[in-house]
């Protein structure tokens, strides 16, 4: 077993972490497990692909690779647009479906509705793009040695840096700004927060926007490193939930710690028992944490 699994696990963990933050915020503030979160990831990747193609048609050279990376400025710009679009998709889904159920106060029916929405969105993506995988770039990247026998590509380093930046931004938003304080207040007690003058609807919109944008970033990362297909987000859903529960529901640093554990665990399993059993790791970790410490690493008992 070579230490390479640590590098692979870190990268997988970053992708899972970007999605898990949305899941954990959604769960602690809107109070339901959103099964459609995986589709935000897939949608974000396809949206980036389409916007990048449009930019490529309008500006020659936008697809030209920057320095050692496999992507040009076209994909970077498309990513920003797609993050906005994915946030908008999350808001639209909330307006059409979840807001109505929230008014009726049926939390668990909302989970059901999100499962239906997930299925429908995924099937729509399959209809529009077929189930054949697509790629941002077909160029092969050479992995560079970084010591201890580990190798990473330039893309992977750039994406890890970007992830760290996004995570630090979200953490700062939640802990240092008025909006973050309002979000934590709603997570604590929505009724009391409303009475105290917190704009609960604004907080809910912020949760969807942040969750959608980060899921899109996760999708772009997955698309650049692996491939883009309609099931990409759905296959990531169990690791997302496992990471959020492992870290403790509602905790952003916890979600990231959980994601890194799931990511490294998966990468280790690939080396030890084989890639086909990768998906079982998230399930075993989930059962383990529910048996031993259901509140997770950073969670509080409620």
């Amino acid at each position, binding site marked *: 077993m070579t230490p390479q699994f640590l590098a692979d696990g870190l990268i997988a963990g970053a992708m899972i972490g970007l999605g898990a933050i949305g899941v954990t915020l959604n*769960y602690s503030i809107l109070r*339901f*497990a959103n*099964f459609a979160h995986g589709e935000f990831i897939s949608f974000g990747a396809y949206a980036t692909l389409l916007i990048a193609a449009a930019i490529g048609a309008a500006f020659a050279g936008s697809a030209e690779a920057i320095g050692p990376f496999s992507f040009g400025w076209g994909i970077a710009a498309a990513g920003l647009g797609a993050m906005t679009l994915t946030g908008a998709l999350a808001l639209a889904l909330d307006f059409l*479906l979840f807001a*109505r*159920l929230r008014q*009726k106060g*049926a*939390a*668990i*029916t909302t*989970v*059901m*509705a999100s*499962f*239906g*929405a997930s*299925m*429908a969105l*995924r*099937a*729509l993506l*399959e*209809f529009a793009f*077929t*189930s054949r995988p697509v790629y941002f770039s077909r160029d092969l990247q050479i992995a560079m040695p970084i010591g201890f026998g580990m190798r990473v590509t330039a893309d992977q380093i750039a994406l890890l840096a970007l992830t760290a930046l996004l995570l630090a931004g979200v953490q700062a938003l939640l802990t240092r700004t008025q909006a973050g304080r309002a979000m934590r207040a709603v997570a604590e007690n929505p009724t009391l927060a409303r009475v105290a003058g917190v704009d609960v609807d604004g907080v809910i919109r912020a949760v969807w926007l942040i969750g959608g944008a980060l899921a899109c970033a996760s999708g772009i990362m997955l698309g650049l490193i692996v491939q883009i297909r309609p099931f990409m987000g*759905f296959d990531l*859903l*169990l690791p997302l*939930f*496992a990471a959020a*529960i492992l870290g403790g529901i509602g905790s952003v640093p916890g979600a990231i710690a959980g994601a890194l554990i799931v990511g490294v665990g998966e990468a280790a399993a690939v080396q030890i028992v084989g890639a*086909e*059993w990768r*998906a*079982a790791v*998230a*399930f075993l970790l*989930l*059962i383990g944490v*529910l*048996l031993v410490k*259901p509140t997770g690493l950073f969670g509080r008992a*409620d």
Partner: protein
Amino acid sequence: MTPDVAGLAAYASFFLSIALINALVCLGLNLQWGQTGLFNVGIAGFVAIGAYVSALLTTPASAAHWGGLALPIAAGWIGAMAAAGALSAFVGAVTLRLRADYLAITTFGVAVSVQLVALNAQSLTGGAFGIGFIPRPFESLAERPALFGLANLAIIVALVGVVYVGLERLARSPWGRVLRALREDERAARSLGKNPTRYRLQAFALGGALMGLGGAAHAHLIGFIAPENYQSSLTFQIWAMLIVGGSGNNRGAIAGAVLISALWSASGLAIGALFAPEDQARAAALRIVAIGVLLAATIVARPRGLFGERATVSRHLDKAVESAGTAE
């Protein structure tokens, strides 16, 4: 020209058999969700466990998968219910004392993991090739499709009938009332000395066992199973059946199962007739969208479904009211 009565009978009985097998699974879900409020997103996993256990118990010995114990079909059914029930009891024991969504997430994980084992543990399950030569009831009639189909349909009707009557009795029993009391107001039920986790665990395990029975019945109807039968779209269809039919109502569960199965087959036939073969996979994605929209619309616009739940009270109360009426 005489209409092909035998062919029509064979097709109709096959369709109804499939629809009623779905109804079995849907009745299991109704016990879990409709009566008790337990959310299962891994139905396909429990159905798969039932199908695989029954297949491994009843097939003749084979080198392509574990065993093949060549036991009678009834033993397969019982084994399927026991295995799926035991798995449900384990999942319930881990999650039922926690927040409701944890059960949903864990059952989802069960479905993913069962799919993974079915696909990859080739020496146990036959892997992607699945398991063939599963014995079918009335195999000797297979030469006469209409009679064969009707005989198999009769078995499945009998299964659904027994399960339906049993569940109706349970729903009216003190046990069933405790389940609904827990669903509606856990604190009140707890204050009357009812242990919520124990009752929920029993309902969840029994519902899971019925899903396993449905899986076994399906395996013995078709005679062949493979991992791709048990994907999340199956879970999704069963949910649509229960929600559209009316959750909490056993008749609603059966009616919803027949209705959604009919829509599913009809749309499958339409896609086959209307689209060129290379476009059929894409068109098939659209019917999942349609069912998803139907499901979401039912939840928002008509949460009670077609039938809705009827208020059930103790049969002793009816008698008490009657005797009070005659006494006046």
